[in-house]
């Protein structure tokens, strides 16, 4: 193990991260997007493919209760971990709940902290905590330009097509997150005509598959989305929201939810609701994290791997 990361040594970074989450680095390898643990990547255990991007989620800037009184520090620790990667990702995806209460000061603090990333390109989708202001304007005032203020958009990078969706604005009572017919029609048009061999990444805040409906951990139009992406040979669906890793593979589609950098939440159905879960400080590292994905060219496919910070 080498300590060549300048003033912040790996040991120090690890000490910070004993309390924080890092991110997921996504490596496109043989056309396969492979999340690898950022800690492993920083240590030089580089995945076979080219590091493509890191996923950070659920930073909840503004949260200050006992589950984590200093979410800014844990985000900074995660950023330090990402910056320590030997091969910097081209960009960072934030899959929502940037803030806790959608307040302007929280967004400002988050922006200041995220400026610390060496990778300067940041793509976001909102979480429900980012659009909880009375006029739903704080998030869109800052990040709306990427999507003509719709919230959903797509972009391409190194032959990978990435689609950000918004499933936190049109809930049905007692129901799940929803995309709405307009967004679904847009998605269909966006994917139409694209080669099925294009590696596809679809990201949104709430799970795009049903994990636990009594807590709203799913998206109403999940089946419709799956039908649209099923023909692609390599599909990675990335979400946040539930503050824990849950994965599923269905055909060529890999579903993956990221850890939070702020605090863990209970497993589905444990307790009255999906609120912050207080764990002993010593157990927190095992509950927080970040992932990384790389692109592999041969063979084309998907693989997912995660590890905790413990």
């Amino acid at each position, binding site marked *: 193990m080498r300590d060549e990361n300048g003033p912040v040594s790996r040991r120090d970074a690890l000490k910070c991260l004993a309390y924080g989450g890092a991110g997921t680095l996504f490596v496109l390898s043989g056309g396969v997007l492979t999340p690898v643990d950022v800690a492993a990547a920083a240590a030089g255990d580089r995945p076979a493919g080219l590091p493509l991007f890191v996923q950070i989620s659920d930073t909840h800037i503004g949260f200050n*209760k006992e589950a984590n009184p200093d979410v800014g520090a844990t985000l900074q620790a995660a950023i330090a971990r990402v910056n320590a990667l030997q091969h910097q990702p081209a960009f960072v995806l934030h899959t929502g709940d940037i803030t806790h209460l*959608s307040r302007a000061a929280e967004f400002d603090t988050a922006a200041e902290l995220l400026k610390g990333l060496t990778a300067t390109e940041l793509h976001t989708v909102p979480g429900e905590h980012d659009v909880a202001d009375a006029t739903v*304007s704080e998030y*869109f005032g800052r990040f709306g330009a990427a999507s003509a*203020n719709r919230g959903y958009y797509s972009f391409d990078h190194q032959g990978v097509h990435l689609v950000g969706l918004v499933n936190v604005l049109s809930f049905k*009572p*007692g129901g799940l997150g929803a995309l709405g017919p307009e967004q679904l029609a847009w998605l269909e048009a966006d994917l139409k005509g694209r080669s099925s061999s294009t590696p596809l990444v679809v990201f949104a805040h709430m799970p795009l598959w049903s994990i636990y409906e009594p807590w709203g951990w799913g998206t109403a139009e999940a089946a419709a989305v799956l039908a649209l992406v099923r023909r692609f040979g390599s599909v990675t669906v990335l979400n946040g929201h539930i503050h824990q890793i849950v994965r599923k593979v269905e055909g060529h589609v890999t579903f993956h939810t990221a850890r939070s950098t702020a605090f863990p939440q209970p497993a589905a159905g444990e307790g009255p609701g*999906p609120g912050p879960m207080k764990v002993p400080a010593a157990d927190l590292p095992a509950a927080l994290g970040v992932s990384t994905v790389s692109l592999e060219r041969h063979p084309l496919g998907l693989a997912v791997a995660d590890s905790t910070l413990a």
Partner: protein
Amino acid sequence: MHHSRVPGARRAAAGAALLLAVSLAGAAAPQPAAAGPTYTIKLEHFMFTPGTLTVPVGATVRWRNLDGEPHTTVSVDGLFRSGALDQGDSYAFTFKAPGNYRYVCSIHPQMVGTIVVTAAP
């Protein structure tokens, strides 16, 4: 998508709306002379209590969050929308027409409630 996105205008509106919400939520906020009674709904343990509340037209309903987790109250038909209510925060709305008003917490949409507003006796 039921929100149009015009950030500049909306941001200006946001300030005004938030001020309005704060003044409505403040205990000392002056009520109109003909103000009706005030009812309180607790947001606790990821539930609205009572889940269904019947009030006369003109009544004010105040939602108060007791959970450590923030909640909102958002009318399904777009009539009202609180900002994020942190622990101890409240939001109030006065119902001026009879009807059934369903609402959700937009952060936890499994939380649902209904206000039944009856015609004045």
